[in-house]
């Protein structure tokens, strides 16, 4: 083996002449032009040097590394000389049965000289480690020509990069579903690669993810079928690709995969209602049904819940909201777009289901919505009780005290029932008596763990007053009766419609129909009134005054209709449109408007 001086072969260069003498007969190069332009390096004395350190001592596969070699090279074994057979990187020292490592190259110039800086004590080299080089220990061997002993440095550790995962498709998985996935990354080992194939393991939050049909397609792609366990909770699964330590690119690469949990429905106390061991829940109409789900908290990183959907069976409402002035009662729809649900059932029914699912904004999921969580309810009413309706059948001409507040100043009324002697709006309280009401409704007396109330809706109401000049007809628009809720005494409420009678009237008629709803409200907090049922009722009465227009001699009222109109109708799902009292207006009397009357009076004054 021949050695040639490089830029820094100064330790041997004092012997240039000797070198020239020796080199010519033995050189493989037969012309100076083939020799390094600086000088050829010849050993002054063939013998082993020492390599005290090689820096860095770890060489990553696939990289070009500048290496500093320190030591003592008195015999021309410094690395600046031309590399010949035997020089280089070996997988083991030559005397230990090693071989040159073909996957590690020392970078040379076109003349075969190593690129770098060189001196007898420290030199730099550039080595290029092939990407496919497995992890191993290697040695730098500077073979001393003629001395039969090589200068060996090392070992140096070559580290091969493990696999990396850059993306997983689809980019999120629902627990309990199966997916064909594709993993993109680097340094995966196929079955044909040393140590291959790459192994895959996935650990989910709260459980495992089953893997099947694993195929390492290439160094950059793995495909598999995965099935995250159904009880995984929201979080990140750890996807780990591992190359065996004995093969190429040993090590492992990890990535996180969002797990979207199977929805679970809980009650407001945190008890799980849905799932394999779910039982039918027993509830009562009007009670608040508060449900939550396990997706109430923040979703896994990078995932946005785009839609919550509740499907509630039976007839349910979000709430019964009476406006401050009772001019309207609204029954709001249940908001089924939130992660929590609040609703109230109106009617009793068995086997009613509530289902919930959610959807996420993951574009590469074929079905971005979860499966349903489901709870079954049996809804019962408070009891089978129904109100007792009492029709007095009594039509009276009664006298009530009116202005100017003296006991003798009476106003006559034709009345369904018998109320007499009560105060007017502006008189002292003169007392009076309450006789039979026209109609009364008594709530069930059975215990119901709640309270009863009444709400009356006027269906139609027409009064006609026949005078000498004609007939004045006044009407009341359909809507809520004047008071809400209808006050009741000991669970009983009543109504006694009346019509005022004046001397100038010849005849008075009233045609009235209303629906009285019996409502029940559970004692449980936040319950709403729900209808037990309703009773329609009516009256048509007439009385005449032969003494008109100055006297009053009213005939006994004649009624063509009075009392209940049909039976009490318990609410059930078949009467959805009639079971719940709602209104958008008060029952407003119009006959005629004040403004009209004022205008008319003013015109009269002007005339």
């Amino acid at each position: 083996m021949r050695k040639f001086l490089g830029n820094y072969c100064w330790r041997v260069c004092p012997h240039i002449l000797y070198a020239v003498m020796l080199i010519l007969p033995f050189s493989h190069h037969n012309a100076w032009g083939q020799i390094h332009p600086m000088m050829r390096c010849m050993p002054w004395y063939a013998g082993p040097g020492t390599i005290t350190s090689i820096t860095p001592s770890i060489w990553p596969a696939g990289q070009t590394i500048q290496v500093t070699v320190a030591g003592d090279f008195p015999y021309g074994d410094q690395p600046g000389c031309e590399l010949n057979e035997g020089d280089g990187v070996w997988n083991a020292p030559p005397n230990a049965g090693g071989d040159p490592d073909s996957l590690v190259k020392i970078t040379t110039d076109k003349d075969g000289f190593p690129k770098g800086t060189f001196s007898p004590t420290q030199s730099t080299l550039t080595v290029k480690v092939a990407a496919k080089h497995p992890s191993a220990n290697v040695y730098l061997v500077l073979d001393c020509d003629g001395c039969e002993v090589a200068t060996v440095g090392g070992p140096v550790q070559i580290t091969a990069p493990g696999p990396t995962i850059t993306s997983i498709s689809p980019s999120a998985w629902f627990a309990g579903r199966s997916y064909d996935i594709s993993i993109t990354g680097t340094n995966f080992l196929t079955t044909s690669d040393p140590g291959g194939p790459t192994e895959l393991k996935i650990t989910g939050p709260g459980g495992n993810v089953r893997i099947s049909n694993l195929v390492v397609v290439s160094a950059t792609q793995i495909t598999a079928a995965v099935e995250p366990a159904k009880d995984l909770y929201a979080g990140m699964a750890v996807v780990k690709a591992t190359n065996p330590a004995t093969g190429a690119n040993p090590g492992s690469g990890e990535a996180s995969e969002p797990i979207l949990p199977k929805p679970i429905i809980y009650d407001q106390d945190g008890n799980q209602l849905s799932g394999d061991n779910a039982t039918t829940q027993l509830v009562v109409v009007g009670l608040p049904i508060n449900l939550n789900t396990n997706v109430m908290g923040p979703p896994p990183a990078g995932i946005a819940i785009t839609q919550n959907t509740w499907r509630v069976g039976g007839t349910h409402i979000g709430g019964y909201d009476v406006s401050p002035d009772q001019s309207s009662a609204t029954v709001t729809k249940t908001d089924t777009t939130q992660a929590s649900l609040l609703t109230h059932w109106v009617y009793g029914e068995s086997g009613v289901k509530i289902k919930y699912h959610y959807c996420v904004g993951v574009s590469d999921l074929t079905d971005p919505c979860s499966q349903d969580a489901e709870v079954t309810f049996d809804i019962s009413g408070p009891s089978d009780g129904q109100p007792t309706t009492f029709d007095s059948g009594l039509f009276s001409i009664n006298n009530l005290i009116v202005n100017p507040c003296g006991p003798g100043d009476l106003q006559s009324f034709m009345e369904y029932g018998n109320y007499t002697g009560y105060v007017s709006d502006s008189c002292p309280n003169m007392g009076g008596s309450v006789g039979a009401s026209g109609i009364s409704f008594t709530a069930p007396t059975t215990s119901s763990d709640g309270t009863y109330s009444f709400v009356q809706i006027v269906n139609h109401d027409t009064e006609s007053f026949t005078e000498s000049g004609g007939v004045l007809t006044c009407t009341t628009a359909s809507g809520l009766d004047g008071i809400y809720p209808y006050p009741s005494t000991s669970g009983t409420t009543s109504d006694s419609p009346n019509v005022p009678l004046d001397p100038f009237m010849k005849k008075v008629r009233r045609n009235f129909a209303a629906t009285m709803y019996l409502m029940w409200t559970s004692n449980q907090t936040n319950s709403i009134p729900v209808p037990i049922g309703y009773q329609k009722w009516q009256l048509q009465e007439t009385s005449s005054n032969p003494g008109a227009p100055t006297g009053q001699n009213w005939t006994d009222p004649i009624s063509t209709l009075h009392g209940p109109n049909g039976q009490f109708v318990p609410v059930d799902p078949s009467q959805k449109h009639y079971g719940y009292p709602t209104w958008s207006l008060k029952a407003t009397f119009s006959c005629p408007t004040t403004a009209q009357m004022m205008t008319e009076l003013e015109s009269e004054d002007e005339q």
Partner: protein
Amino acid sequence: MKRLAKGLVFGLLAISVTVIGLKAQEATPPRLTLTLKVPKSEIKLGENIDITIKLTNTSQEPITLLFGNHGNVASFYQYDVRNENGDSVAEVGPRFQQLPNGQMLQLPTRLPGSFTQGAIDPGKSVTSNSTVSDLYRFDHPGKYTIRVSRYASDTAGETKKVYSNALEITVIPAENANKQQ
């Protein structure tokens, strides 16, 4: 001295009785409260003026009362309506309607309605609606004050009354309202 002593004794007695009386009066909390509300405090001239009367039982016992309405006015309440000068506002009084044939018809002195007797449970309320403009003449723009009262019970001879808050409304000219719109 004796006279002075007697006078002192009577005086102290009188004071004591007065104090006891006052204490007794103070010790009787109102059993009912009345609250007036109006959907909007600014109303165009000629519009209906609707108020809501909320009667609440603040006692520990149910209170039985009469309820009702005549026309759109809640019965069993006394209405006190005053204008910006503090003068009582006139009631509408006799009212007439002119028929298409030119004849005038007189409306009933009071309008049709209903009576019912009921109880308000402790802590509960009953609300009644009243269109006070059906009773009183809000015939010019300005500020009006409405107050409502009712007897504390329907027992004959009852003298105690319950008074509501004073509700102030502003009647604005119809043309101003149009401009604002």
